[in-house]
């Protein structure tokens, strides 16, 4: 296979001003259980080559053939198109010859299907014992090996495993329904799932749903709000991470996931209060979005997206970096071998401050604590956003009060970040899969942050 990569690169680079070849092989498995019934298991080994060529424009061929003649045919089609006019900004640097691997103590291949099924059954049984009439549980894992080479001498090899658990459960009372979804993922082995106290997490969530289903809504109005790490995490992802992806700013995603409210703005641009700094960091070992080199062979590093309320560094792949005239910063990710690398997030989080949870609450006379969320969405420039609370309590005179049902934050990015006056010293991460690109690519990420306090936000 290494010989084949060399041969493909020789062929492509001799017919283009720059070429790169990436070979990726991913072995994956999954199992599902719904309302107590095991539905089935899947396994797959998927591999293939991505060959990118640069001439008057950029062409990419994706093929999983093992025949050089077949591969050549696909490359020739990409070469022919790249001979036509188009954009052709692409960083072509070499980032050396390196190999890396992420730590996995209990590798997916060392965990039997019986153990995986047993884990799913235990979770399902627990949910059933808690009175959850709707239960969906999925377990998945993957092990990936990737080799990236370009015509300027770069050769990067990486291997990593990922494990993930997804659940959705709900409580049905008459026609009322309350649901909770959970996603736990890590670039690691099954030791990650072993480290979670799922019994406590799920039991607590089910108890909250039971209370929330008959709770009253909130009286709409402006109030002080404390949000939990799950919400600060999704906000960091949606309204700091996405708008700072540089391909969106220059309009390349406009027809799909959209642009950015920062398009056309002079930077640094003030997005919020001094308290707010948002970081994207692929180097956090064990995080769901961890990698040492991205899928374009660029070394990853921590990036401040917002620093003290001002925009700081964009997320780049090779193409967007060249467009701006900067070096790529390790943000080029592909969800699988057969899709192009795009500027993507990894672990995006609001930087913690120095308040304890009690200190955040005690200074609120009449407000609300929204710990977690259910429905959310945001417009295509990442400005007008909505988060519906899953677990939430009124705050009266600095103390938590009654639980309330589905309070809604519907605000905009500047207003949200500008309303933050204090940030907790805690930091918690949550896993997710982030969608972008066409074909759509869901890449694993972590989102996180501390508890943060916002003054005078409209809640309904």
């Amino acid at each position, binding site marked *: 296979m290494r010989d084949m990569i060399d041969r493909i690169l020789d062929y492509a680079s001799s017919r283009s001003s720059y070429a790169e070849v990436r070979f990726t092989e991913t072995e994956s498995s999954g199992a599902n259980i719904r309302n107590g019934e095991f539905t089935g298991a899947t396994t797959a080994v998927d591999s293939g080559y991505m060959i990118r060529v640069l001439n008057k424009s950029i062409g990419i061929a994706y093929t999983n053939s093992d025949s050089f003649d077949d591969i050549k045919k696909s490359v020739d089609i990409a070469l022919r198109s790249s001979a036509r006019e188009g954009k052709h900004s692409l960083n072509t640097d070499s980032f050396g010859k390196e190999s890396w691997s992420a730590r996995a103590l209990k590798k997916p291949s060392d965990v039997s299907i019986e153990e995986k099924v047993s884990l799913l059954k235990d979770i399902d049984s627990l949910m059933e014992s808690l009175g959850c009439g709707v239960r969906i549980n999925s377990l998945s894992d993957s092990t990936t090996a990737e080799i990236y080479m370009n015509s300027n001498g770069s050769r990067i090899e990486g291997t990593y495993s990922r494990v993930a658990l997804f659940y959705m459960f709900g409580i049905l009372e008459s026609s009322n329904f309350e649901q909770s979804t959970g996603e736990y993922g890590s670039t690691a082995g099954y030791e990650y799932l072993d480290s979670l106290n799922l019994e406590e997490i799920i039991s607590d969530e089910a108890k909250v749903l039971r209370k929330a289903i008959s709770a009253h809504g909130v009286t709409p109005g402006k109030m002080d709000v404390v949000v939990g790490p799950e919400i600060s995490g999704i906000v960091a992802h949606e309204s700091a991470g996405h708008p700072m992806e540089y391909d969106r700013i220059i309009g390349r995603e406009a027809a799909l996931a959209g642009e950015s409210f920062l398009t056309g703005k002079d930077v640094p641009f003030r997005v919020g209060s001094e308290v707010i700094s948002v970081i994207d960091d692929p180097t956090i070992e064990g995080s769901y979005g961890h990698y040492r080199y991205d899928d374009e062979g660029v070394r990853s590093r921590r990036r401040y997206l917002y620093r003290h309320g001002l925009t700081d560094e964009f997320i780049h792949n090779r193409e967007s970096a060249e467009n701006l005239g900067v070096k790529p910063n390790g943000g080029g990710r592909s969800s699988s071998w057969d899709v*192009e690398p795009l500027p993507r997030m990894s672990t995006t989080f609001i930087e913690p401050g120095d308040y304890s949870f009690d200190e955040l609450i005690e200074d609120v006379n009449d407000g609300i604590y929204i710990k977690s969320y259910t429905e959310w969405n945001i417009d295509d420039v990442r400005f007008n956003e909505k988060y519906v609370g899953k677990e939430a309590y009124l705050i009266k005179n600095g103390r938590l009060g009654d639980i309330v049902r589905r309070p809604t934050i519907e605000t905009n990015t500047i207003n949200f970040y500008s309303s933050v006056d204090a940030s907790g010293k805690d930091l918690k991460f949550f896993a997710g899969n982030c969608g972008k690109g066409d074909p759509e690519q869901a890449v694993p990420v972590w989102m996180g942050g501390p508890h943060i306090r916002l003054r005078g936000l409209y809640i309904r």
Partner: protein
Amino acid sequence: MDTVDRIYGYLNREGVRDIVIVRTRDETRQLRFSNNRKDLFNVWDEQYISLFGALGKRVGSTIVRPHLKLEPQLDAFISLLRKLPENPSFYGINPEVQDYSRSSAPVWEHPDIDEIAGRVIDSSVEAGSRRSTGVIYSRKSEISIKTEFNEHAYIHGDLEILVRAISDYGTGQESVHYGPDSIKEVDPEGVGREAGQTAALRLKSTEGRSGRYDVLMSPYLLGNIFSYCSMYFSQESVDTHLSPFESLLQKKIGPEVLTLHDDPVDLSGGGYALFDDEGTLTRKNTIIEGGVLRTFLQSYSTARRHDTRTTGNAGILSPHAWQLEIEPGTRQFSEMLSEMKNGLYVLNAWYTRFQDYRNGTFSTVPRDGVFRVEDGKVVERVAGIRINASFAQFISQIAEISRERKRVKWWEEISPSVMPYALVRDVEISRSF
């Protein structure tokens, strides 16, 4: 012996039943452009053999790599099946021999998508767009299936043209799909022009207000909502207690003007399929007829659970819609618009998310053409609003349906479908504070 036959023979000898082998060769081409210039040309050549099988009620699936030794891969799959618990809801794959004699699709020739993109961009700019961004796809897949009972193959081809036009006044978007029966109708200029014209409408933009409004929904917005909510018509969702229509079969769930089909045999759209995932011939199914819920979508297995027949919508374990079509109404779009006293006209939406999967309670964010209508005229652009609804209630609020329809398909937000314009009464609109 052919690889598929070898796989089948080996598994069969080892006692695996309900074998489904699908071989796919995908030769797709895509061109992406933004700011009126080509960004990237993508070409795919992928071959897969996917495999489903069961030992009794123990079911699993895998991907076979034909260039590697088959036996170890198949042994690993059989070993996996032996270790799995049973799926009590699995009743096998469809044993009925299918008559594929009239089921075929013409050969697909890739059009020049570079050239199509150029025509789309030029016409969009000519109509008033300052920046045009989009994607052109030509998909071609050779698909063959072999089961214990059936065997068939065809070539699937479709073309998709997506353009988003951006001017100093606003945005517009068109995203249409073509199958082999409509490929001669491809009109890149028309698609680009329509998006450009929407973007170029010189109207002032105002922040929207919360409240309840009559909303004239374009085929895109309707397509978005029905695409996301099509899961509620799957028997699997019903059985999981995740459908608001659980006990409403043969009951009225919408107005008389609403008739909804799933039509995978309409080869004018890109969402066609000649057989489902277990080899059953697909067919046009009427899901809602004159407002009455007529069927849930079934595979053989889900149908057996409910003593009915498959509708040709496998997903063996989880049936799904192929290509939704709402029957045309009697009204003209222009009449519907001109009769609107005070309401909204919304062309598209995205990021549809649910706070209550069981009852279908969702919100979605309008984009690419959101207008306030006063006395039958589009008077201003509206920004910053959100549509909030529950799907069952939403359906019942549909008051009028247009004669005109469009073949809409957009990214991951709208599945290939054929949708009209619809007037929906009393829709809850919220805005950001």
